[in-house]
């Protein structure tokens, strides 16, 4: 067999004929990664990119913290400060937590439901590349952006163009500086006349396309590609939470897309949507933004909740307590998440009826959240807790999320929220939810599933050092922020008066931030050394419960040598364990042999397995998006228009190539259902059925061809 990595380049030449084509394992080369449609590789790329942006966002946070450690600090200019807090938020949300969740979903979703890939592998690659180009586009503001002060001020003597002063990292002020929330009209054409904001608007738009495509893809995957017997109520909780998340994305992204378009039209084409002088209503932006923004919070935290729901049972050696209650609670959180957006706007002067209604709906979210927390505790209760690193992070998640949840309830007390909103109390609250929640959950997932991608264990000792450093640093950073907010420190504040007495607390916060940074350094070292020297994990290092652990580690390209048949929830566990009269778990005598067989069979498929072929076209198509973005920003110039043309050309050529390329090499002999004459020619496929076909053909009885 030839290697797959060359193939996409030659697709416009003679159509490949009936090559029976098996994906080689040696696709480690550069082009192997660039052209891959394998959900695992895409997941890994998502993961590394997300981690890279985590570091970027973290460095931004550290700069902010150095600045805020002293009152009236001049370490950063106002422009640089505003750009840094805006980009810290946007980066952590759109470029770290969302893609990190996407990394896990990509890697694990097909494995957990017993599929060979997602429904649309090339759309999956498109999502990934669109995400990457969206991130690059957003940060290209650092090089191409301008962050001008309000109209009329830019020429005022004494104001630098960016509205800062020399030094103080003022060059950073060219990045988007309207906050991740981009409130209008401050982020509109009159008050942010530079191009910085446009990079945020269009960048998030591109990232939205990536997430929307992924949402459709994952929803179809979950509904149509579960292994036989994997009924909805046998799916792991992580899959359930993924499904809820994808529906939230599906329904919330179009809303933000419109809001971003409206702002883009305002800024670049003179539309009047948010221009108050022309009758535009700035509050409309907030409604649209938070209609997306609140579901977004659950988009960020639900996957982590799913991961914790996977980790806790394994390390408690008990099934998840109240499986259906946890799922129902997750769905309820997702559903209610659409009905609470205006609680971000209690101080905007919306009517008292609206305030009361949204206050009440916000309170109700506490109920399903509580159900989850109690069920997680119920899972550990009476268990046999092995305090491995994943469990530490999972318990850290639960403990910290309780704090974030409780401070969240204090916001639903509307009048009380009039004091808290826009202060560091809110900053503390959502970091307890998103860092104490999402990030701790993600690290639980990383330690737990690291063997799945590497075949090795992440170091336990360093892992525990990492956990405790992070746990202490986290609480030292964000705990005092509650107090800071209640003492009147407003958010997004470049300077605070020393007379407010806030400085000592801010010093503590900054120290905490550096402890978190240290913990991340420990993690990076741990990752780096464990990749090379970690203990081999074997097939089932954690005595796990779900089917992704029934295949060898690292996962073979085809995932399952034989597609599994699922007979119950936690199928793998029940194949290993039965219960005695008291209901205690007893390992079946044949379990070890079964695992050895799984290991052997997993590495030696009995049948030919057809997998989706690599493709250049998702990359090509996605690469057009940033060019259109740049073109819109400079649409008044000739070369700006040229950029638009180039972008459209890239998208169209990518689309045409995509439509004419078969998902996998044709192998008609496997397809008695196909009309041979037709299929030779009309490979204009979007190939959902092809993946289905891939697994179908796995069970045909062709001999293995080894090359």
């Amino acid at each position, binding site marked *: 067999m030839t290697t797959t990595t060359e193939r996409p380049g030659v697709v416009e030449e003679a159509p490949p004929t009936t090559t029976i084509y098996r994906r080689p394992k040696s696709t480690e080369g550069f082009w192997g990664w660039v052209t891959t449609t394998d959900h695992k590789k895409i997941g890994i790329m998502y993961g590394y990119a997300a981690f890279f942006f985590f570091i970027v966002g973290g460095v931004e946070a550290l700069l902010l913290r150095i600045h805020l450690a002293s009152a009236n600090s001049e370490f950063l200019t106002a422009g640089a400060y505003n750009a840094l807090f805006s980009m810290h938020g946007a980066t952590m949300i759109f470029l770290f937590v969302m893609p990190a969740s996407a990394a896990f979903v990509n890697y694990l979703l097909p494995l957990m439901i017993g*599929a060979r890939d997602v*429904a*649309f592998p090339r759309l999956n690659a498109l999502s990934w590349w669109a995400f990457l180009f969206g991130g690059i586009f957003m940060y290209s503001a650092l090089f191409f952006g301008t962050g001008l002060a309000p109209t009329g001020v830019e020429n005022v003597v004494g104001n630098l163009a960016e509205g800062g002063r020399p030094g103080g990292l003022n060059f950073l002020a060219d990045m988007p500086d309207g906050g991740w929330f981009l409130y209008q009209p401050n982020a509109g054409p009159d008050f942010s006349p530079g191009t910085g904001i446009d990079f945020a608007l269009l960048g998030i738009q591109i990232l939205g396309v990536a997430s*929307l495509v992924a949402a*459709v*893809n994952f*929803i*179809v995957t979950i*509904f*149509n*590609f*579960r*292994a*036989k*017997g994997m*009924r909805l109520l046998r799916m792991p909780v992580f899959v359930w939470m993924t499904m809820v998340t994808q529906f939230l994305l*599906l*329904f*919330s*992204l*179009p*809303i933000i*897309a*419109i*809001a971003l*378009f*409206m702002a883009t*039209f*305002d800024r670049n*084409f*003179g*539309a*009047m*949507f948010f221009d108050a002088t*022309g*009758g*535009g*209503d700035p509050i*409309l932006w907030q409604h*649209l933004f938070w209609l997306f923004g609140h579901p977004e919070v659950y988009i960020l935290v639900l996957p982590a909740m799913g991961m914790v729901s996977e980790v806790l049972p394994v390390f408690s050696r008990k099934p998840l307590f109240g499986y259906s209650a946890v799922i129902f609670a997750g769905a309820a959180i997702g559903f209610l998440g659409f009905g609470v957006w205006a609680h971000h706007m209690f101080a905007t002067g919306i009517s008292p009826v609206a305030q009361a209604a949204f206050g009440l709906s916000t309170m109700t979210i506490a109920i399903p959240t509580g159900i989850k927390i109690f069920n997680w505790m119920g899972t550990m209760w009476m268990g046999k807790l092995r305090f491995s690193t994943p469990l530490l992070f999972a318990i850290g998640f639960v403990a910290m999320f309780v704090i974030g949840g409780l401070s969240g309830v204090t916001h639903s007390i509307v009048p009380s929220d009039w004091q808290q909103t826009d202060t560091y109390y809110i900053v503390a609250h959502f970091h307890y939810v998103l860092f104490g929640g999402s990030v701790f959950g993600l690290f639980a997932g990383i330690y737990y599933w690291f063997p799945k991608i590497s075949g090795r264990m992440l170091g336990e000792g360093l892992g525990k050092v990492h956990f405790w450093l992070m746990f202490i640093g986290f609480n030292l950073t964000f705990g005092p922020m509650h107090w800071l907010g209640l003492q009147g420190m407003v958010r997004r504040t470049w300077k605070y008066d020393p007379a407010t007495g806030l400085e000592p607390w801010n010093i503590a916060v900054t120290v905490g931030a550096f402890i978190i940074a240290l913990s991340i350094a420990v993690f990076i070292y741990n990752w780096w050394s464990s990749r090379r020297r970690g203990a081999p994990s074997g097939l089932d290092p954690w005595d796990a419960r779900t089917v992704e652990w029934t295949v060898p580690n690292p996962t073979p390209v085809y995932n399952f040598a034989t*597609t599994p048949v699922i007979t119950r929830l936690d199928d793998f566990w029940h194949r290993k364990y039965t219960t005695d009269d008291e209901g205690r778990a007893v390992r079946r005598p044949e379990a070890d042999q079964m695992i050895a067989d799984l290991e052997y069979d997993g590495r030696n498929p009995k049948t030919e397995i057809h997998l989706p072929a690599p493709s250049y076209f998702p990359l090509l198509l996605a690469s057009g998006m940033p060019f259109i973005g740049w073109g819109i920003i400079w649409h008044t110039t000739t070369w700006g228009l040229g950029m638009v043309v180039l972008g459209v050309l890239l998208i169209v050529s990518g689309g045409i190539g995509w*439509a004419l390329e078969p998902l996998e090499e044709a192998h008609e002999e496997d397809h008695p*259902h196909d*009309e041979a004459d*037709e*299929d030779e*020619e*009309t*490979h*204009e*496929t*979007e190939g*959902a*059925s*092809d993946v*289905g*076909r891939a*697994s*179908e053909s796995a*069970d045909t009885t062709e001999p293995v061809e080894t090359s």
Partner: protein
Amino acid sequence: MTDLAHEGDVTAEDHHDEHESLGMDARKLGMWVFLSSEFLFFGALMTNYLLYSNRPGLADPYPGTIYDIPFTSVSSFVLLMSSLTMVLAHAALERDDQHQTRTWLFATAALGSIFLGGQVFEFYEFITHDGMTLTTSPVASAFYVLTGFHGLHVAIGILMLLSLWGIGHSQGALSDKRGFNVELVGLYWHFVDIIWIVIFTVVYLLSTS
């Protein structure tokens, strides 16, 4: 019904053997899922328009005062009938009547183009004759962006119809079994039509009266 139709069923059932699934083509499911999210997209645009359409104190002209209802009624009717030709194309394909399929596909694209031409003409009239541009007022911005995004959807639909027509021509046959197919494009096309049904009523008929 026909051999072709059964072929599709078999594919779906094959999935069913291997997977727990909804028992339908994944691409079709994906299209429906995508379309359901489009409601939120157009809904936001319409909200935008409705919010401003009756707000006093905006710069003249309000779109509601300059609509040419007879003209728009005709173009709405044209788009509505394009849904008929679309469904006839699909029905022809189910009968495996490739020639008629191509004819109806082309007719659909042509009707869509007439609608789009009407929209361009309407924009042109509004801008040159009535002096309402994107920058006139929030309600004018909302009108242009709403109908413009709908027009963009129509344009993308026309492109897809023409590619199907072209593929059918050059390769002699279309199928609903795989990839970029008549049924998917049809779903998309009808969706664009129902969005216009709502826009026509809510934006044109109701906001003038």
